[in-house]
């Protein structure tokens, strides 16, 4: 049988693992596909190539297709997010100078307490904090805004876009004081001796959706068969990745010159949830630092689209109701149900939920009986009900 080739774009990060694993372990061939993986250098490039048909699908920041749908980008055919590929995987780092000051003041660098880390940081920031994030529309930007909102530092905080591989340089050059980025780029900055890690993204929001599989609506509509096959291949790769024994192997594969081109030891930290928070080798264990499958991680909850759209609309002065409505339309729970049911994915009864309501893993009704979701709480205790948010 000859395989049909699909071109998938990815940006080098540990959360590109589902694409790389699908290709390297042959989950693509099992579905009669051959993935050609294209390494990209920026999110703008990913968006442009997808919009122009240069790639068939992209590993993309979850908020990016939402921003595109809201008209905050060039005019391209509509984008659909058909499944979430990863949850978590982000870390917040501060400059070596700030870290020293925080330590002097008695901060213990526990890596899991957002309030302690925030208070310690604000105490030494001197009224100003410039924070790097990978893209204006990124889960990182949302995490940073949420974490620092309502503090005395509110007015002094500014958020700047810095490409992930350049985060360490920007910190070293004093262009930013801190950053939030996906692994391995936070660990890379630690290894360079310019940063210390203060917090995992999941400590701010227990279930922050990070990357999704994004296709144009033209593709999902005109090539449903290949859309389904692609989704199933990636879904199986995600399931493989969440078997704990496979994570070290994944780190090896990902680190090859063709992909991340970094020492496996660096990619492994995020994948195993064993992070070195400083140059002196202090290790913090963070189980479930990044998830690819468990807790229904792959389901593109429409309530997540609404939540992120509400935040983007507020920042960019758009009508919130309209924005939430548009965004929910590009999270294709219908395609998820249609294409992944036959792969054996369990499916939740509802397509939207109250975000932030689960402090612990919780069983909910599903097609197969029960599925375990969450936890998904925000550190500030907020809950988001899309029905209540629409006014």
């Amino acid at each position: 049988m000859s395989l049909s080739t699909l071109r998938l774009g990815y940006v080098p990060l540990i959360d590109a693992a589902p694409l790389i694993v699908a290709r390297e372990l042959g989950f693509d061939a099992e579905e009669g596909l051959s993935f050609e993986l294209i390494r990209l250098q920026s999110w703008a490039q990913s968006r442009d190539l997808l919009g122009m048909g240069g790639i068939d699908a992209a590993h993309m920041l979850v908020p990016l297709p939402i921003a595109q749908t809201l008209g905050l980008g060039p005019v391209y055919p509509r984008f659909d997010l058909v499944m979430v590929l990863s949850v978590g995987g982000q870390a917040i780092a501060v400059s070596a100078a700030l870290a020293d000051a925080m330590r002097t003041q008695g901060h213990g660098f526990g890596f899991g307490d957002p309030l302690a880390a925030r208070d310690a940081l604000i105490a030494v920031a001197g009224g100003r904090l410039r924070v790097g994030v990978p893209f204006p529309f990124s889960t990182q930007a949302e995490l940073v805004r949420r974490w620092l909102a309502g503090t005395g530092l509110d007015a002094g905080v500014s958020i700047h876009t810095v490409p992930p591989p350049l985060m360490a340089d920007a910190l070293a050059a004093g262009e930013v004081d801190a950053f939030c980025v996906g692994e391995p780029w936070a660990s890379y900055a630690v290894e360079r001796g310019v940063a210390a890690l203060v917090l995992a993204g999941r400590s701010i929001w227990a279930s922050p959706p990070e990357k999704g599989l994004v296709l144009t609506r033209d593709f999902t509509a005109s090539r449903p068969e290949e859309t389904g096959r692609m989704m199933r291949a990636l879904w199986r790769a995600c399931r493989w990745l969440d078997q704990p024994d496979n994570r070290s192997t994944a780190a090896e594969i990902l680190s090859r010159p063709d992909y991340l081109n970094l020492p496996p030891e660096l990619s492994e930290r995020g994948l195993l949830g064993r992070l070195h928070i400083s140059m002196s080798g202090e290790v913090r264990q963070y189980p479930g630092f990044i998830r690819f499958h468990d807790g229904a991680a792959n389901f593109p909850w429409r309530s997540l689209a609404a939540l992120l759209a509400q935040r983007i609309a507020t920042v960019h002065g758009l009508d919130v109701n309209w924005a939430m409505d548009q965004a929910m339309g590009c999270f294709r729970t219908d395609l998820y149900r249609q294409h992944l049911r036959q792969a054996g994915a369990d499916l939740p009864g509802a397509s939207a939920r109250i975000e932030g309501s689960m402090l612990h893993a919780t069983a909910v009704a599903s097609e197969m009986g029960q599925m375990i979701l969450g936890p998904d709480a925000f550190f500030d205790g907020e809950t988001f009900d899309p029905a209540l948010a629409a006014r």
Partner: protein
Amino acid sequence: MARLSIIVVERDRDRALRIVDGLMASGDHAITVIAEETGLARRIAEQKPDIVLIDVADPSRDVLEELALVSGPMERPVAMFVDRSDEQLTRAAIEAGVSAYVVDGLQPERIKPILDAAIARFHMFQKMRAELAATKAALEERKIIDRAKAILMKARGIDEEAAYALLRKTAMDQKRRVADIAQQLVMAAGLLT
């Protein structure tokens, strides 16, 4: 008509010079080259250019994306992308490997000759880059094949010609390239010693 202010973001000095040459030929512009990625946002904000040209694959593009979003209508923004109405031009630019950030409200007839010139130059570089990569790959393959030949000569006591013939026959039998077979052999030999 006022001169247009253009920024070219390009690290490679030689390449930058040639792009500037191409742009100069399209009219009288004030052109600045930025070769450093640090401080990019600040430097662009200070210069308030009408157009920024940057390689489609440059990691710093995302910094420009942010500039395009944050600049309000009153601050002469480096606004959005290639002219929205001209999809063909956008496509040509991206295929050539150049992305353009154009100030809001700049007339299309002023943008087009500049973009045409940029597209022509970037096309040229893309071709050169592809050729260079192909040459490099061919050299690498040559080296691997030589090593594989040496391994065979030593292991089987045959001469160079026979070693190459063996590689070629194996490749043909397996419907693979000689270089792939050589690569496998070198790797396997590495494991055995």
